[in-house]
């Protein structure tokens, strides 16, 4: 069974770039642009990893992350958070909310790929 990632991001061209990169790495990428029902989408998809933008329409990435961590079955799901807000306070809040990795925009493709590989390997080891 292939590796499955849910990408919650509202910038279509970022979705396209990440989809291209991860697809070539053997991932199935399911993109979603609206924050309001993102938790339900993730629950239904049961992915190996989530890539989550912080500022989303409907519901912020931080709220989505908190909701994910409230779900018993999603508590250990690797979540890579992408954000233009790289302030220490945002990073701290994300860490408190249970983010697995925090990455600020603009990021490099190499960083994203390395983070995805790393998080997936860690999850499989755990």
């Amino acid at each position, binding site marked *: 069974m292939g590796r499955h990632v849910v990408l919650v991001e*509202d*910038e279509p*061209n*970022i979705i*396209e*770039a*990440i989809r*291209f*990169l991860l697809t070539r790495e053997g991932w199935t990428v399911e993109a979603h642009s609206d924050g309001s029902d993102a938790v339900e989408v993730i629950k239904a998809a049961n992915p190996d990893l989530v890539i989550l933008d912080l*500022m989303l*329409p*409907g519901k912020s990435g931080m709220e989505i992350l908190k909701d994910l961590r409230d779900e018993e079955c999603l508590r250990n799901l690797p979540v890579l958070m*992408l954000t*233009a*807000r790289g*302030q220490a306070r945002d990073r701290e809040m994300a860490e408190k909310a249970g983010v697995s990795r925090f990455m*600020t*925009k*603009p*990021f*490099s*493709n*190499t960083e*994203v790929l390395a983070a995805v590989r790393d998080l997936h390997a860690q999850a499989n080891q755990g």
Partner: protein
Amino acid sequence: MARDTLTGSRIRKRRLFLDLRQAALARQVDISASYLNLIEHNRRRIGGKLLVDIARALGVEPSMLTEGAEVALIATLREAAADAGKPVAELDHADEFAGRFPGWAEVLAGEHRRVASLERTVQVLSDRLTHDPHLAASLHEVLSTAASIRSTASILAETGELEPEWRDRFHRNLNEDSRRLAESSKSLVSFLDQSNTGSVRRGVPQEELEAFFTAHDYHFGSLEQGQASPEELVAASPELQSDAARSTALNALQQYRADAEKMPLAAIAQSLSGGFDPAKLATEFHSDLPQVLRRLAALPEAVLGQPCGLVICDASGAVLLRKPIAGFALPRFGAACPLWPLYTALARPLVPVRRQVIQHGRHAAGFECLAIAWPQTPPDFDRDPVYRAVMLILPLAAVPAEPLAVGSNCRVCAGRDCVARREPSILDEEF
């Protein structure tokens, strides 16, 4: 050296004020004129009986000569030395410095105060960069576009064999994104450059006022219960630093108290339990609608049963008081959107205005705005009334079917073809 090294300067100042010659004063206290001259130039210390005699001859209490306005100056000099961040060997000689070189001491103290004021302005600007939701959103857009460009460009540069379909798609994305980035970053830089001028400083008292109200969650229980006066609340507030902010806060609290006296908390809470109807409340409490709208915004959220925002403006449209509400952006600086029902009400004084609105943007939520303008002065045949307007902002459960689309400030408004637009938006290109 003690603070009394300035005593000589005070003696001289007082003597000159009394138009008394040095020799005459010296004679009165039985010392030589040359010795008095040394005292007056702080070259000789003075105390005991001679101080008492000189004070009596000058018609003042001795303490008036040993302490004076210079205390504040010396304190500022010491503060400047402390803020320099390194030990100043001559710290104990601050009073002597102030006594011997009062002009230079004033210059140094003045510069220290100026530095403190500039530091504060920097703090306000960085706070604004951190907390201004529109600025944050704009920066987020710029960085997201940059992220997209970086990622797409990397794919094009680093992927050896790229299918023509993908390559064309990425080229197209790159072209779109780079155009958006160029325009938006140019507008953003221009916006920041222009913000870093007088308007920020003018905004400082308003910022202090908002910080003061925010610290109290826009509700002053002790004022309503008669446990504190507006003056006491203002005096005790660390948020109100400037005279302008204190004066504005005092006026706002006096109006708050008058509103609360008309509509006590327990009584209005009971009335609200029967439903939300501002017009009915006005009748029930023999109040006018502006009072009711202001009062509703001052109630704890648990009493009102929902969050609410409030804006009060004067006849020029300048915002005097703002209570923010999530989803409805109120500009921190500069003029607000002319389409707000607040301004519709200002153009039609005493006529209540109710509008269901949304703000332009990607995360539009619906709000009901209730507004009315009222004259600040009693009717007078010989004087034109001056109006103020108030607008209560209440969230709607869903976006209304036919809302009035408004903005917050033209610069950060995404609305297109707006007849009320004053200047271009930094959110062009669909931002």
